[in-house]
């Protein structure tokens, strides 16, 4: 589904990704781990299409197409979802409006009619209940005054409504208490399916206790330096990132 080859990307002239390669197949869950500054978030933003990041060489194929040619909104309509590390507050735009606009943008792209208003509300309420979100959040400004946990739940709600083919979750676990972490993990697990791929970007192993990855990759200085199964995350937790750096330099 996603095939990244020798990707180099920079922001403001600073090269962050330095030859990253990664292949994620349908039905798979991959975890990208690594110390701060290793390029995890840059990878997530490059996949989503952030225009401040400049891809200097390499390629990103998504379902056999050149992903880098597409604008962020086109990527979203093609089924890519980025869960933000820091979801943006947008006062004056209510949550229901954004959800509906997002769902309809995708439906229009797929040649479908707009979602029925009643159907939309029913679906949103169901998904919110599953995430332990109060339905009143639908009528609040997008992320406006939300706590950290509420913002992350709101990201997962958007993902659940949009049913992406490829979900990239950027440090969705950071700043969450255990209840919120479980709710978020359940939301992600509910989306696991043979047609869908999920990339979890995380600093800590903790999230992987609740979402079991098929593959774990360790990122250091803009490159994947180790890949393995879920046991790699545990090993990393035990030995720390220093171990990876040493292994990479060895």
């Amino acid at each position, binding site marked *: 589904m996603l095939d990244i080859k020798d990707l180099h990307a920079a922001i403001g002239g600073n090269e962050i990704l330095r030859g990253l390669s990664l292949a994620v197949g349908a039905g798979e869950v991959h975890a990208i781990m690594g110390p701060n500054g290793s390029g995890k978030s840059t990878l997530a933003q490059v996949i*989503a*299409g*952030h*225009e401040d990041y400049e891809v200097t060489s390499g390629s990103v194929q998504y379902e056999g197409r050149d992903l880098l040619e597409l*604008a*962020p*909104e086109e*990527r*979203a*309509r093609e089924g890519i*979802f*980025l869960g*933000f590390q820091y*979801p*943006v507050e*947008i*006062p*004056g*735009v209510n949550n229901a*409006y*954004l959800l509906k*606009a*997002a769902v309809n*943008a*995708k439906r229009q*792209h797929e040649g479908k009619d707009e979602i029925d208003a009643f159907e939309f509300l029913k679906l949103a309420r169901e998904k919110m209940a599953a995430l332990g979100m109060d339905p009143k959040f639908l009528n609040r*400004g997008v992320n406006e005054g939300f706590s950290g946990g509420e913002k992350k739940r709101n990201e997962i709600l*958007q993902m659940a409504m*949009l049913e992406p083919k490829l979900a990239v979750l950027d440090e969705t676990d950071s700043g969450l208490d255990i209840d919120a972490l479980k709710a978020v993990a359940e939301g992600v697990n509910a989306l696991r399916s043979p047609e869908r791929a999920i990339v979890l970007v995380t600093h800590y192993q903790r999230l992987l206790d609740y979402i079991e990855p098929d593959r774990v990759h360790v990122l250091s200085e803009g490159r994947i330096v180790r890949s393995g199964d879920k046991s790699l995350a545990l090993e990393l937790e035990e030995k720390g990132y220093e171990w990876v750096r040493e292994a990479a330099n060895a």
Partner: protein
Amino acid sequence: MMHELPVDRLAETAAALPHASLAGLREAGRTVLARQGFPTTKVEDWKYTDLGGVAALSRAWLAAGAPVDEPDTELVRRAQAGLDAHWIVIANGSVLEAFSDALALPGIGVATDASEFPKPHGALGGLNAALVRDPVRIRVSESLTKPLALLVADSATASAVTAQVRVNLAVDRGAAVQVFEHQVSSGDEGHYSNVLVELDLAADSRCDYVRLQQRATAHSQTARLDVRLDRDARFDYFGADLGGRLARHDLAVDIAGRGASATLNGVYVAGPGQHVDNHTRTDHRVGPATSRQEYRGVLAGRARAVWNGKAIVHAGADGTDAEQANHNLLLTEQAEVDAKPELEIYADDVKCAHGTTVGHLDERALYYLRTRGIGRQRARRILTRAFAATVVDSAPIAGLRETIGDAVEARLRDIMAEIGA
């Protein structure tokens, strides 16, 4: 240098106006105007707004024999459609009785006794008094069940026109009234209107006031709303300036009674070539009392906005709680804003805050919306509308919120189309 008007012409024009009993008021107006002339940009309050153009238009109009267009009744009908209200319609300064059902209510009518009006104040007050045709006097003794709609529907099709509007509204003790001041205009010739509304709120009375200014973009106006609040009176105001080439609004609130509260919110939208100027002044003469103010502006192309919010807490007005805010969104680099809060405090126990911002659309929010599948142009529109919505949603007359929201949204769409955003 003053922008002067010829006094002899003013007197001739006044002599031909209806209601000869108002001659004294008109003469007093001429005297004030002759002494002061139109304010120039040398006057602090008019530093950024040049009335040279409207003074020239007024001179030309007087020289041409003060012609007045037939009322544009189609414009009136469109504005009245679908809104359940008691109406007073004023077209080019004349009250249109056929469209003004509110004249049948007790205490409402065209006032012909000069002594009913306070002395003209300031040059524009003088101009208003000098040339007013049908001043309207309203006294609300018992609460009205429907909003009172003041529709100012001007037109300039045959030649350039100037018009004066004067409304004096008193709300008696304990009464409540909702007022919708709606300004529209039509015609390709120049038009200048000068509107003066006075509002006196007795103890325990209440007024919800919505002002919507949608003049044709070739037309200009100066307008003033003077409000006085007695003990425990409440005034909730929302104004939207959307049209006009030059639009100036002065809102002066005089808090003269303890326990009074005033909310002054507004939005202005200006596209290429438009100049919109909002001056507000709140006098806290006694405390405790509360005032809240938030104006938001959206500008595109070569648009210019001025916001000046003055709050004065007089000696002894302890317990005053006053907040002022002005936020501006510039959609293009050429747009310009002069925003200035002015706070003067002469009392000890007060709570005052003010803040102004001038900025662009939040790139992070734009990107966030785009990652949700919303195209760039649509995302810009959503965020621009949202910027204004936070004050538009505060409009005090619930039944008008949709009308106001639609009008603001339509104007935002227009200016964004004009700059190709």
